[in-house]
Each structure stands twice: as C-alpha cells, then as structure tokens.
C-alpha cells in the first residue's frame, strides 16, 4: 500500500471513528449482521502516518483465512492523540470487540487501561519495551490480557554511530527533547553515553511545542551544530515535519524514526522493520481468535532493523555518503 492510500485510509478511518463512536454511544454495534464473525478493533495514535505493519498484518491475516468483511470484521481507527485513543479503546470495549490490535505505545496504553476490567485480549505491535512498560510480566509468560510483538528498542546510539560514519567531521548534534515526555529519559541517557564514546557533543534543547522548536532553530548560529536528532517520542509524533522544514532551511541533516520521513527529506532512519512485525502480529490474532488465551502466548521480539537513506537529501546538504553505507542501506531514496 502506498502513502496516498494510507492517507485515504486515515481520512476514511477518521470518519468511521466518529460514526462508530456515535453508534456505540447509542448502544448499537452498528452492524448486527456481522455478529457471526469475530470483530477486531485496530488502533494507532498519530494521524500523520499509518504504520506499515498494518498492511502486513491484514495481508497475513488473509493468508490465514481471516478475510475482512467475510470471516472477520476489522475496524481500523487512526487517532489524533492520547485522549482520542482512550475514548476509542473504551468504545471498542463497549462494542464488545473480540480483540484489540494496538499499534505503538500510545494506543497500547489506552487499550491496556480500557481492557483492565473486561480483560478483552489485546495484541500489541511494536511497543518500545513491553516489560518496562508493564504490559506483560515477562516475555515468555505475559500473565496478562496483552501480548504481541516488538522490535529493537529505540536505537539512539546507533543513530549517532551512523551520523558519525555518514557525516564527516560531525562534532555537535542538536538533540531535541521534551521534558514533559516520559519516554525521554532513557533514550537521552543512552544517547549521552554513546555520544561520549563517539566523541560527539550533544546540544540538548528542551522543547514542547512548535514555537519552541522554531525558536531553537532561529537561535542556532551557523555551524553551531552539524546534525539534528529528535529524541522524545512526542516530538517525533507531532513535530517531525516541522523539524524537517526548519532543518532543511538551516541546511542540517535530520535523523528520523521512520523511513516515511526519510522519503520526505530526513537523511536516514534506522529502526525496527515494521512489516515483519505486522506479519508476526497476525499469528497472535489468529491464535487468540482460535481460542488460545493471550496469557499463554509468549511475546515475540523481532531483531530485524531497517536502514533507509536519502541520497538526494545528502546531495542537497553536501554530504558524501560512504559507498559501504549505501550498500548497507535497505532502502535508498535517490
């Protein structure tokens, strides 16, 4: 599925979400004819994109015999923010869905809270760390109504390492952090350690909104920093596009957390490969719908990482990417 299709799906999903919410409030499930087939609610926070794991998930489900509209009813909801996620999770629970598939931490936390009482099964896809986030007791034995699949955690040290290889003479990296974001502390600490080992200085700037970010870029002196890293998850979620625009104006390379942003101008991304996660997640949905309790399905950790590179951006910035890096890249935008 291409990006355009994702956007259309997101728009349609928003409209359906509104209608679905209304229907749920009026006490109707909105489609009594589908009672015979399992109903699965899928949710994600971040309307700027649709996770690529969604396509691989539904494709694999079809291979397993779960065809949307025939043998299964899939309800996709891409949500604006945390509050919308919490509301939607409640709606799913009230609708009595058989299963919720939650993508990424924002929607996973909302689904966990909403199903605490009903113990509706939840399959999570690519949380940062399911044990640290207390989604499960252990990977081998979840002991919870949540289970699922996740990839390598935020590889912040590797981001710095890749910068060090690809941007010759890199000394200082602008590191944008949101102090109000709980997900900032651990990666920041890791980044600090990595930077020290790599001999890179971090120019850490605390921001929490668009004007803060604009202010940071306005205040940058030429040559003050050599590259940009968006560290806090909340900043990545809401301000990647803005950061890209501002960095381009400042002729600074940006490391993004997804290949989609690389396509839109970031220099590179290096992180978990989402498609395999969606494929793996389908097995959990299949097993649970077949009657296996989620507490008996060990959480799966996939090691696959994806390295995307934008050579056009590098050219614009005057960066000569070493040939071996180009060879190592899984996706190269030229």
């Amino acid at each position, binding site marked *: 599925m291409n990006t355009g299709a994702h956007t259309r799906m997101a728009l349609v999903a928003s409209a359906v979400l509104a209608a679905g919410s209304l229907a749920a409030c009026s006490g109707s499930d909105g489609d009594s004819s589908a009672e015979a087939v399992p109903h699965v609610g899928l949710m994600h926070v971040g309307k700027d994109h649709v996770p690529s794991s969604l396509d691989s998930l539904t494709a694999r489900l079809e291979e397993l015999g779960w065809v949307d509209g025939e043998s299964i009813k899939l309800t996709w909801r891409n949500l604006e923010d945390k509050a919308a996620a919490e509301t939607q999770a409640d709606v799913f629970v009230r609708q009595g869905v058989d299963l919720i598939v939650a993508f990424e931490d924002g929607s996973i936390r909302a689904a966990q809270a909403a199903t605490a009482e009903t113990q509706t099964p939840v399959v999570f896809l690519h949380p940062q760390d399911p044990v640290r986030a207390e989604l499960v007791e252990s*990977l081998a*034995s979840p002991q919870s109504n949540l289970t699922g699949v996740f990839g*390598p955690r935020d590889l912040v040290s*590797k981001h710095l*390492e890749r910068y060090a290889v690809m941007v010759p003479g890199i000394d200082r990296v602008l590191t944008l952090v949101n102090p109000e974001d709980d997900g900032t502390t651990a990666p920041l600490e890791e980044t600090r350690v990595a930077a020290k080992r790599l001999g890179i200085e971090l120019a850490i700037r605390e921001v929490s909104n668009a004007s803060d970010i604009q202010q940071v870029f306005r205040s940058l002196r030429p040559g003050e920093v050599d590259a940009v890293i968006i560290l806090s998850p909340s900043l990545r979620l809401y301000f990647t596009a803005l950061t890209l625009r501002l960095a381009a104006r400042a002729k600074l390379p940006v490391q993004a957390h997804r290949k989609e942003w690389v396509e839109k101008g970031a220099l590179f991304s290096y992180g978990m490969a989402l498609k395999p996660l969606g494929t793996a997640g389908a097995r959990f949905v299949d097993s649970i719908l077949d009657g296996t309790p989620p507490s008996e399905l060990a959480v799966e*950790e*996939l*090691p696959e990482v994806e390295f995307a590179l934008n050579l056009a951006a590098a050219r614009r910035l005057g960066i000569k990417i070493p040939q071996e890096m180009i060879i190592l890249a899984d996706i190269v935008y030229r």
Partner: protein
Amino acid sequence: MEQSSAIRARPRRRLIRKYVALVAALVVAALLTSGLTELYFSYQDNKEALFRIQSEKAFSAAATIDQFLEPLVREIEDVARPPMESGTRGRDERELNYLRLLQRATEVIQVSYLDASGRECLRVSPDELTIRGCRRDLSTQPRFRGARAKDTYYGPVYFRRDSQPHMTISVAESGSGRGVVAAEVDLRYVDTVISQTRVGTAGYAYAVDSRGRLVAHPNTNLVLTRTSLASLPQVAAALEGTAPEARSVTIGRDLDGREVLSAFQTVDLLDWRIFVEEPLSEAFAPLNSTIKRTALLLILFLALAVGTSVVLGRRMAKPIETMQAAAERIGAGALDQRIDVSSNDELGALAGEFNRMVERLQESHVDLEQKVDARTRALATALSELDEKSRELESASRHKSEFLANMSHELRTPLNAIIGFSQVLRERMFGDVNAKQEEYLDDILSSGQHLLALINDILDLSKVEAGQVELDVAPFSLREALESGVVMVRERATQDGVHVELAADPEVDVVTGDERRIRQVVFNLLSNAVKFTPTGGAVGVRTARVNGEVRVSVSDTGPGIASEDRERIFEEFQQTKAGIEQREGTGLGLALSKRLVELHGGRIWVEGDEGHGSTFVFTLPASPV
C-alpha cells in the same frame, strides 16, 4: 399326551435351530474372517501411513533446520577470512563484512571477531554501538576453543531476555592468523519450524539437544524452564543410539505419561533430535472408526443372516413338518392319509416313497383285518363252546361237591356210630373184652377215626371247591392261635421225643382273618411236622412281618421234601414217600391248608432240601381280607 406332543415338537425346533445356527455360523465366520482380515490390513496400512507421515515430518523438519543452518554457516564462513589489507583498513574491511553479514542474514544479531589469542577485537550488532579494539579475553570460552578445535562450533541454545532462543556459531578463520568469528544467531526460525510441524490435531514436534534438553517445543515454558526429556523412553533410546535412525517409529510417552506414536530425525549439524509425536488415541482414531464400522456391519449382516436362515429354515422344514404331521395321522390310524409334498427334490421323492409305503400298509391292514375277523369269529365260537363246557364242568363240580357233602354226611352218621360203639366197647361199658377183641376194637376205632378225618377233610375241601366256605373274618391273636396249635400237638410230640418251640415275633400279634380256619392250617402243619420228625428232633414255629405281610413258618428236622414234590404235595391225595411209608394222613391236609390260606389272600409253600428238614411257610396279607 403332553409328553407325546413334546416329543413331536422337539425335533421341529431343533431342525430350524440347526438351520439358523448353521447359516448364521457360516455368515459370521465369513464376515469375521473378511472383517478381521480387512481390519488387520487396514491397521497395517494405517500404521504404515502414520509411520511414514511422522517420519517424513521429522525428516522434513530436520532438513528444514539443516537448510536454515547450512547457508547461515556458509555466510559466517564467508566473513571468516583475514582482510586483504592490514591495520585500520583491514579492520574497516572486516567491520564492513560483518555489517554486510548482519544485513544479509537477519538471523545473525551480533558478530564478533576474536583474534588468535582469544581477545574480542571487534563486535558489530544492529542495536549496539560497534566495539573496536581488543579488550575482552574470551580465550577460555567454548566459542573460541571449539572453533579452534573443530573449525565450526555450535553453542548451546540460550534465551535472550528469557524469550527468544539463540545460539552462538563460531568459525575459525582460514589462514595463518586463525582468529575466530563468533555470531549470535536468532533461532526463532527453528522454533517456528517446530511449532508449525504438526500431525493431526493433537500431534506436535519438539527438538532436544544432545543431552535431551528441550531446545524447541510448542509450549515455550517447557523450553524456558530448561526441561529435560532424557527420561522419556523414546528420547533416551534416540540419544543412546539404540533407536533406529530415521523413518522408524516407536511407541513412546509424553510428559503426561500418555502413549504417543513417535518418530525422530537427527539434525546433523547440531546433533539435535527432532521428534514428531502424536497421541496414540488420535493416531489410531480412524482405525477405531473402522473397527466400529466393521462391528456394526457384522451385527447387521448377522441379523440379516439369522432372518434369512429363519426363512430358509422354515421353507426347508415345512415339507418335513408336513410329512411328520401326515405320519402322525397315519400312525393314529388314518391310513387313507397321503403326504402332499410336491417339491421336485429329495423331500418330494421321500414323500412319494412314504405314500407308496402307506398304500402297501393300507392293503396289508385290510388283509389283516379280514384275517383278524375270521380268527375272531373262530375264537368266539371256541369261547362259546368253552363257555358251555365250563358251565357243564361247573355243574358237574357242583354236583360232585354236593354229592360229596351229602355222602360225607351220610357216611359220617354211621361212622360216628361205629366209632362211638367201638369206644363204648373198648371202655368195657358192656362187659369185658379179651385181648384179641380189644386189639380189633382198637383197629376199628383207629380206622373209624381215620375215615372220619378223611371224610371231614373231603367235606371241607369240597365245600371250598364248591364255594360254600365263607370266612368269618375278624381280628384275632395269631400268637394265641399258634400257642393253641402247639398245645394240641405237644402231647404227641412229647410221646415221640420231639421238641416243639414257638418263637413268635412280639410285633406280630393281632391279625385279621378267620381264626378257626387259621388254627386249622396251623394245626395241620404242626401235626405234619411232629408226625415226620424223628425222635430227638425239633419243630419250630415262627412269625415275622415281611414286606407288610405276616409270615408264619413251621420248620422241622424231618426227612425234608424232594424238590420235585414241593408243588405236588399241595394237591389232593398227594403224599411224599415218607407220608406213604408212615401210613398216616389223608393226603388232603396240605391241599385244604393251601385253599384256606389262598382264601385269605395269602400264599403257602415249602422250603428246605431233602434230608435237611423242611419249613412250611404261609402268609397272611397285612390288610384285612
């Protein structure tokens, strides 16, 4: 009549039962043979098929794991060669090679280079900073020593974050340096292969290492808890090498102790054993269904066979029943009866023969009837004549008896006068008599008395024969009658020196009969006994109750009676040789006694051998006469 019906009915039932039993037995035997044969071969085929499937699944899983590992090892071997250049460039080349390995083989999550002395000089992974520079000493670790010893080393399975199975594969570099490349490999694929290897609905696969410890199992918890299956018989046999390798199946047990059909295959590279197992209950479920189906068919066909045999049996037995019924009627005299069996077989032929036989029987019967009629008529004539003669004889006998009675009376009167006057003269009531006269008087008296006794006996006998004797039946004491008889003969016995003894059974006393006649019989027997017993002899009288009748015996020690005389002496005027010599008796006493005893419904006979005395026995019935 009922017994006769039962006898007639029994063979009919037996015949049908025999038919039914025979046909049913034949059908059951055929079905059982066929069913059991089919079941046996079905069982063998089923078993073979199951064995083949499981063996192939195990083989396939092991081959898949081999196919997963072999290229992976080759990839590692590809990077396990010294760089073309030395120094920093050489190090960069090695790092780049490792990065490429990580890119190509996503299962490899970390690659390390250990130099010839075992120090880790480079570590590359997708999620951690690359470590450069020789610091950690890993020379004592198996990953280094193993690779140096055998070129390629496969470490034990371990679990990262207690979840994903991993393994270290290290390969010694070629060339003079002999460094070692150690790769950490994600074995999730192996886990997936094992999890996806299934037989039926309850069958499963698992893998154990060379020590029997689980390395992959659908139940991850068992793997994570380092469960050892070495104690399972099939695992122990496989590890010891006693179980035949590949494409063989044994009956083993699972962790719950249930019997399972188990096949295994060795993964050569790792020395693992891949087991594919299925619970016996499920594996042989189709066979159980076949057994049930066969049993159902057997019951069905058995019922059909019994039904058919009943119908056939009835059809076969009906002509026989018809013949039997006809034979019964013919046996009851209906000789005009014929058997109506028209079947053109042995039974029809039998019926025809039977009918012909009855025809001949009927002809014989008619002939016989005619002969019987003729004989009957002749017999009737003879009987009529006999009757006439009998009546004449009876009349003659009656006239004889009447004559004898009259003659006896007429004879007794003058005889009484002779006896009476002889006695008077003998007692000298009319004057003295001389010795010669006295002698003649004694002869007259003796002859008169003998003649009188003879006449009395003749009179009695004739009365009996004429049916003029009527018994005066009443209860009386037999003992007293016997004592009386003994008293009457005792004087004579004493004179002759004969001892007379009465031994009456105290149980036998009162009997029913004509006391006077019984006394007459007893006296007769006693007087005979005393008469024929020589001096010094003995006469004994005994009574006893034998078989409900009273038995009286009079025995003596006299000359005995010859066997040829034993019947004769009870006839009129018949005497033994001794009797004739004794010149005593009339020859009518025993004949009269016999008549009197028989009038009482009893019997009289004599026992004992000649020369050893004799015993006269008579009986009286226990019941009243």
